[in-house]
């Protein structure tokens, strides 16, 4: 009887086995790349808003400080989204007939808040606090990018655990003096005080920053 398998089958088996392994590796690499791609992490996400509010005009153009509107950022975990009255401190006199601002005026007369769509949204099992960062030398720009150049608010950082840890492992190069926290275009590496000095001034101990319970509590 002729042999069921030819001699060639030996090498064919090896090729098939290696091929399957290579395919598995390729699939996992592809899956990982997709999983960490902007498509999954939402980098570049810029949702439609009820009013086409532009940070570029208000921060870049008028030079407003972030805290004029996000006034809770230094005192609470939540940065705060400005209430209608904050817009009206200026728009009671500025651009009072603009069609674009009709929802703001309507919100004031009917006393119903504007419902902005969240841009950044961490998973609910992660604890995050603005107060902890903003009072310890981490500037808005380090996490939110050049907000003063955004006509539409857009997410710039992936907000993955890897991203948080890349800074928590070594915060020094990202630290700024307190009066530069809301500045845009400041470079912690080349401008102002050195990172090591600021680490001491803010008394930052990187050991606890890597513990799971810092962010998952």
């Amino acid at each position, binding site marked *: 009887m002729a042999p069921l398998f030819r001699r060639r089958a030996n090498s064919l088996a090896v090729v098939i086995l290696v091929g399957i392994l290579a395919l598995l590796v390729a699939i996992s690499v592809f899956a990982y790349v997709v999983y960490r791609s902007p498509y999954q992490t939402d980098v570049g996400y810029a949702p439609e808003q009820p009013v086409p509010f532009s940070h570029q005009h208000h921060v870049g153009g008028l030079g407003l*400080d972030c805290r*004029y509107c996000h006034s809770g950022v230094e005192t609470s*975990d*939540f940065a705060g*989204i400005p209430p209608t009255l*904050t817009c009206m*401190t200026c728009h009671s*006199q*500025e651009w009072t007939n603009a069609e674009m601002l009709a929802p703001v005026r309507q919100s004031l007369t009917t006393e119903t808040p504007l419902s902005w769509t969240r841009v950044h949204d961490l998973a609910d099992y992660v604890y995050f606090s603005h107060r902890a960062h903003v009072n310890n030398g981490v500037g808005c720009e380090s996490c939110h990018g050049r907000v003063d150049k955004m006509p539409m608010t857009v997410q710039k950082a992936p907000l993955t655990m890897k991203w948080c840890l890349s800074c928590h492992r070594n915060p020094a190069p990202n630290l700024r003096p307190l009066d530069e926290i809301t500045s845009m275009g400041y470079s912690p590496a080349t401008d102002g005080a050195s990172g090591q000095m600021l680490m001491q001034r803010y008394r930052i101990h990187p050991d606890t920053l890597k513990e799971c319970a810092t962010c998952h509590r």
Partner: protein
Amino acid sequence: MTRLARPCIAALLALSMTLSIAACDQPHMEDQAKYETFEAAPEWADDQSALTPVPGSVARDARLGPVPDELPMPLTAELLERGRERFNIYCSPCHARTGSGHGMVVQRGFPQPPTFHSERLRQAPLRHFYDVISDGFGVMYAYRDRVAPEDRWAIAAYIRALQLARHASLADVPADVRQRLKRGDATKVTP
């Protein structure tokens, strides 16, 4: 063959159990059944989880006594520094960093506020600035929701410093700094 059947069935069972655990979709931990700050809450008042406080609510740490007429804290460099920071955030868009009233928003058409360097406002007590920040003034809205009482005093003290600075003469400057001012490198004088 029967000798192998039992371990085989056991192994299959174990495998299917592990697989079924893995396949079990975790209830979404990213979006838990709780309201985050300002999250929409259908069927609550205005569909929002952040409720408006009942009229007459008092903040837990609010000081309830009457507002003092004079600065209630010692006048320190830190207080002025705090006042400078807060003034530049909340007031300078209209009143300008110098208090002249030519801020960026005014340049874009907002009614111009009076300068802080007029005789009337130079004579005004600090309490006047405190009250304007708390309650607003004419077309200027109140800033009580964003500027805490201590910060209002800090801003008032800083406005006074701005007013004094506008009318300062060389004789008010300490002797060592005066030399540098005369040489013209004034930028190095400000700390």
